[in-house]
């Protein structure tokens, strides 16, 4: 069913607004920064929050997939980018691409971008496992109820149709449809009855769904929006931290601190420019800190 699993901790109970703001800020900053230290700061922040939300196990496959992608990115950069000046390896001349020349700068650039990719996949992992899709949809339904309704309905139908597919497949197999023998073309062809049955049955169901919506007054006028989510002090804190780090991040970017020049020669780190990375990282670990505090001190539980 849903990838999301409810867990007993503060982060799972956050107001969707706080969670979405947090995630958006991280994505924006990850795309804005190119400085490896700034990106690493973001990664550390997201990592601690994921661990604090009890989703380390779910995070692992994301990390593995990202590592695969990162290797590809590094290879593409290393092999095809001729820009760096510190040559590590001089390869043979290859048609089309020219002379292969692997440089330290290109590898470092690959690593930097790898961290960026890790930040982004991690934050999506956080979104998938720690934020209930319903809550987010509910948040957006203020802006567009029709599209959100379509998405919600589709989300509800998805598991139902997976079950349908299984059942229909079984039924057709019992009717002698051979799924696992023959050529690839034959196998594709033999699966078509399943898709055809699913289409026909789903369309009939869509009619009944529409009827049920109609009978409950859908489209009879302006809708209101039912909500019972309350903003707690913890949510305000996280919202504040997210906004703070966004502002700091933009300011650092305008100063040119969060950018990093890889080519033609790696730039040296200037400590003064890195202090903002520290601030942003700390601000973005606020949910993790609150989460741990929430678990450790019952008093804090009642206050935030």
């Amino acid at each position: 069913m849903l990838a999301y699993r409810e867990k007993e901790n503060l982060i799972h109970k956050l107001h969707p607004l706080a969670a979405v703001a947090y995630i958006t800020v991280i994505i924006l900053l990850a795309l804005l920064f190119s400085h490896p230290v700034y990106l690493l700061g973001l990664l550390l922040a997201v990592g601690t929050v994921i661990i604090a939300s009890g989703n380390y196990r779910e995070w692992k496959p994301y990390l593995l997939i990202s590592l695969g992608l990162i290797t590809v990115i590094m290879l593409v950069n290393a092999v095809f980018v001729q820009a760096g000046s510190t040559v590590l390896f001089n390869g043979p001349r290859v048609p089309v691409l020219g002379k292969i020349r692997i440089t330290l700068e290109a590898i470092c650039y690959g690593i930097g971008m790898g961290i960026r990719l890790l930040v982004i996949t991690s934050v999506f992992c956080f979104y998938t496992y720690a934020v209930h899709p319903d809550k987010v949809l509910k948040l957006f339904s203020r802006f567009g109820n029709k599209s959100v309704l379509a998405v919600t309905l589709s989300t509800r139908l998805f598991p139902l149709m997976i079950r349908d597919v299984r059942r229909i497949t079984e039924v057709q197999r019992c009717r002698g449809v051979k799924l696992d023998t023959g050529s690839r073309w034959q196998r594709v062809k033999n699966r078509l009855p399943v898709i055809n049955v699913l289409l026909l049955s789903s369309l009939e169901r869509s009619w009944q769904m529409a009827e049920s919506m109609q009978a409950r007054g859908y489209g009879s006028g302006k809708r209101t929006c039912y909500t019972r989510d309350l903003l707690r002090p913890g949510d305000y804190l996280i919202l504040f931290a997210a906004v703070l780090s966004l502002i700091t991040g933009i300011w650092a970017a305008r100063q040119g601190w969060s950018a990093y020049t890889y080519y033609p020669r790696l730039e040296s780190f200037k400590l003064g420019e890195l202090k903002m990375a520290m601030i942003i990282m700390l601000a973005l670990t606020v949910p993790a800190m609150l989460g741990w505090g929430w678990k450790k001190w019952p008093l804090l539980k009642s206050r935030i």
Partner: protein
Amino acid sequence: MAVIKIQDLTYYYPESEKPALDNINLEITGGQFVLLVGGSGCGKSTLIRALSGLIPDFYGGTYRGKVFLNGKEIRQLDRRSLVRQVGMVFQDPESQLVMTNVEQEVAFGLENLGLPNSLMKRRVMEVTGALALSGYLHGFIPELSGGQKQKVALASVLAMQPEILVLDEPTSQLDPVAGEEILAMVRRLNEENGITVILVEQRLERCFHLADRVLVMENGRILYDGVPESVARWAAKNKSPFIPPLARLFAGVGFPEVPLTVKQGREILKAYYPFPGLRNRNPKIKRAEAAGDECLVDIQNLWFTYPSGKEALKNINLKIRPGDFTVIMGENAAGKTTLLKNITGLLKPGRGQVKVLNRDTKKVSVEELASTIGYLSQDPNDYLFLPTVREELAFTLSNMCLSDDGVSAEILQRLQLTSYAETNPRDLSSGERQRVALASVLVARPQVLLLDEPTRGLDYRLKAELGDILLQLQAEGKAVLVVTHDVEFAAEYAESIVLMAEGTIIAGGSKYEMLTRSTFYSPQISKLFNNLVDDVVTLEQGREILTRLMVVKENQVVCG
């Protein structure tokens, strides 16, 4: 005062020549519990859709006549006030819930009405509390059971506080326990809150006595309208199948009183007690063991565990011989469906073995077994995707590399589908669709036929037709194995019963042993004669006893 008044209502569905409603005139008083009965396609669903305004707004078509709600013509009302007055619950819980979580589903209608948040919160709280849904307010709807889903559907309608509650076969897709629960709720709403209820239902033994008034429909017309007792008598006289089995039994033999419930029936019978010399001739139908011990399916020490670790079948032993008609009964999740899948070869035994015609299913693929074992699933729609009925049959034949030696024509004839051969199966009614699905299975001439909940959603007439087809197959020496919750069907047609619970076979034997002397797993007829006459299971037996009772009574009167 009449809450609902219908005047000369005639309605045609788009592109239809035959009227779905034919000059309906009807008045319903507030607070009544009205039961609407009739065969499939009689117009009962159409009539309730006309009350809720879905016809003609949603369906289109040709519409003539007037429907008044509280004195106002329905076509003059705006949608919101209409929806607030009439709430509608549909047949299939799966296809009427639109949100992913319970709370939001209940709030859905309220949002549509544009109510303020504070009021919505109150209504959601009230209605989920009243229907005992508070426990899973945040539940993910696809993970709920069918009965829970139907309760959510009911709650989402009740939250809008309708004056009139219209229900279109709300229990037809549920197992008996969940169905009972829904009906009990509806009854409470009617008795305690005074909500007018209009119920369309097929399983009349549960709701006939609840109604204040019963309407019988046929061909878009209201044939009869009256209190349940008078409808029972009228139906018996006119050979209409739409009365509960008990009433049909008593009225059918011309008994002076007609009971609606087992309790009333036993009251009536007690007047005749003690029954002078009335021993039921125990119909021990010894099946000709001519077939010897040839086994079509032989299940030995079958154990099955799902990959998730759930032990679904434990030490099952079962033999299926030619000419068997066995019904498997038991709670949900008792392992019935898993057992069927082990026989079809969809699942392979963990321990023990399943032999079909002496071949171990582990060594044979599902597709090869398919020509021996026919399987009809719950939802006939899972079979139908071709443009004509004839092609559906031809598809099965070509899958199994069989040639058509006139078998399709024969099967179509037998299932009364010949006239539909060139029709698109998706244009047929649900009963007809089931026959097409059955035809597409039977066309391969399987020796064993497995059916999963075949009576779900069928009315009495269709059930009887299905039962007769199965009996014919049995007579030809085919083995029939049915999984069902429907005790009445099992009692009438089966020969032996197997009870399952928690993955084991609890008991098995002839229906005369299995379905009597039980409070729950017995048909109304057995309950009626429990401790009065032994081993009564079928309507035929009941009829015989009642006829004899009447004769005795007459003699007494004459002698006295």
